[in-house]
């Protein structure tokens, strides 16, 4: 029976870790939007065409280097 004296404190430590992880997740907006991140794996990562990232870059010639 003495094993519970070790296992129960261990389970409490794990519980504390779980709660800490959950609080971290809530504070870092992990639970604010549950729909959009689900789409991320469906997207193939394609390299953006150069200059397409900003409207200004697309409209004006690239600065001289």
């Amino acid at each position, binding site marked *: *029976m003495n094993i519970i004296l070790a296992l*129960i404190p261990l389970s*409490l430590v794990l*519980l504390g870790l*779980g*709660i800490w992880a*959950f*609080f971290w997740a*809530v*504070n870092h*907006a992990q*639970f*604010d*939007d549950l*729909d*959009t991140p*689900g*789409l*991320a794996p*469906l*997207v*193939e990562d*394609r*390299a*953006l*065409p150069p200059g*397409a*990232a*900003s*409207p*200004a870059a*697309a409209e004006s010639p690239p600065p001289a280097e």
Partner: protein
Amino acid sequence: MAERCFHCGEAIAPGSALTALQDGTPRAVCCIGCRAAVEWIEGLGLADYYRLRSEPAARAEAAADFSAWDRPALDRLYVRREGDQAEACVLVGGLRCAACSWLIERALGALPGVAEVSVNPAARRLRLRWEAAVTPLSRLLSALARLGYTAHPLEAGAIDSMAQREQRTALKRLVIAGLGMMQAMMYAVALYAGAFEGMDPLTRDFFRWLGFLVTTPVVLYSAQPFFAGARRELAARRLGMDVPVAFAIALVYVASLAEALRGGGQVYFDSAAMFTFFLLGGRYLEMRARHRAADVVDALARLQPALAQRRTATGAEETVGVHELVPGDVVHVADGATVPADGELLDERCSVDESMLSGESAARARRRGDTLLAGSVLVQGPALLRVTRVGSDTVLSSMLRLIARAGAERPRVAREGERLAAGFVAAVLALTLITAGAWLWFDPARAFPAALAVLVVACPCAFALAVPTALTRALAVLARQGVLVVRADALERLCRVRRVLFDKTGTLTENRLELLSVVCAAGVTREQALALGAALERGSRHPLACALRTAAEGMTLPPAQDLEAIAGQGVRGTLGAESLRLGRASFALGPGAADDGSVVLAGAHGEIARFQLRERVRGEAATTLQALAAQGIALEILSGDAAERVEAVARRLGVATWHARQTPQDKLARLDVLRRGSEGVAMVGDGVNDAPVLAGADVGIALAGAAELSQAHADLVLGGDRLDGLLQARAVALATRRVMRQNLAWAMAYNLGAVPLAALGLVPPWLAAIGMSLSSLGVLLNSLRIAAPDSRPQATPVVAGAVQEVTA
């Protein structure tokens, strides 16, 4: 079937050849704005959006000029700065599914200087943090517009979202309570087993202190809202639900602690934790529903434009914020734009659509010197106006005050379940005290355990869950049917409704006209007349023009030239050598011609054809009204429109009672009269002019296409612009009331049976815990029985009292 736009899914006008190159294939689009959006999204490498989305996008408008947003006067109001970083909150129109927020986050995040883009799809808000020195706000807004969304920056105060913080804290509290409850129950099971099998006092105390350890955060952190609420209620000297709940939690916790210290009797830490968790669960579900209601958006931000074109003394135009306008300024309003402030028309004439403000369905002609109202839309312009009233003095703002007053006067129905539960908890506390007192008299040693057992057995979990679980289930069922319940207690009131008031324009009718008949002059066919009429109305977006174009769909239209629209009169143009006029009889045929309300097409030699138009009644309106009448509900039409148009619609739908030319004040007065008969009154409407009545009625119901302001003050929003959602909402509301009553009866029966036994000291603690859980489970399972009615009623053609006119 006409072709649909690749971007927004709207029908493409026949003959349009606009295409956008996407993924190597040309795709048909409906307008320049949509083409720009498709090509821009493709250029960003975000074309996956079209694969991911579940709803078509909103129609994109051609890109506007946003540079005015960089003016210091606007910047101060809408942007918050911290060092180099600027922060703003934007209300995004056209945000429809998760793919939209994905698209916005990717597209704006790629702009230089942007540090953070976070989209809240439920609230339709976008929070931006960026380096103001690198990128001005106007560039972010124009990027958003190029994607096809409309951007309405919100005042800087909106950045800190109260709702978000509240939601996060509530979620943390709920999870702590849940985890604490599970642990406490595990240790409690060990203790119960020990009570049967024998357990040495040292191990027993070990488990008791473990229970204390995991329950303490639940009571001190998770149950905080109950203690805070109880303090507020006591300070206000009224007894609500929080006082008895907080008292019961504290009592069970402190008593268990005393028992553990004393080393005797029983501890009930698991009950305290479970009690807190179940109650918090109910509260959390209610909070979610409440936030969704608040998300139905700052209506004013959409209704009133934030920018205006001011004409300076030199005659040049500058774009300024609406809050910078002062009476006396001269403002230019473009065709199709919203009027920014009340003012006096300086141009010869224009016509405006005030349907959202007054319910009048036809566009109104305005002449020089007439007043234009803020919030109305210029149908035929442009126009110059001199500002007379701004800000809180405008008619629109007075409407907002009317809404606030009507909402405050709405009779608040105390929730049946909550009232019952609060009374019950108070009774249980009294009973606990009596039990303790009685046992102290007979056998002081058993007083404490018996009193505690009464408290635990009678734990009002089943009561607390009876109402929220039924409501939550009902909300979920209705949401799947497309009916959004903004205020949950509206379902209870919906059961009591004996009379339903309908607005006409936009509610019973669609905001469109349909062609009823064509009377042609000798020698002219119906097709020829329609083709001529449609050709003349080619460029117009007047409802009449749309009706003619719809009727002439598929015909080859002759090319008309020199088209000129005369506001409030009609349109003229030339076709070949003949000059044609289409409009009121007096316009087309010359002054003195008899006006029978129809639209006349005339050439140089007199009348060619007469078109009779009528408002298009929604397909499902007749069946919905019949079904409501069959349930014994009185129907009535309250409209701001002219009497003959209201009468025509009332006759077609078989509604006997109708009132025309009703201002919002008139509608409210009518509501008061009906209310005095003490019957439940529901109002169904869509315009801003209906908003005060929606706020004041027992149940306010808005259509999803309604003005934001109306939606914000409605209790129910019918999705998909379908009226028959009302029938489903009522069916589900009745089922919910039935289930709630069963739940409350069950909880009452269980407690009446168990409490006397507990008071006599006959219930062992493990049985008390099992009984409590089973009674809660019963309530939960019963609530799951609420389901949607089998299917939507089949839409049948409108026949009730329809006026069939024979085409000559």
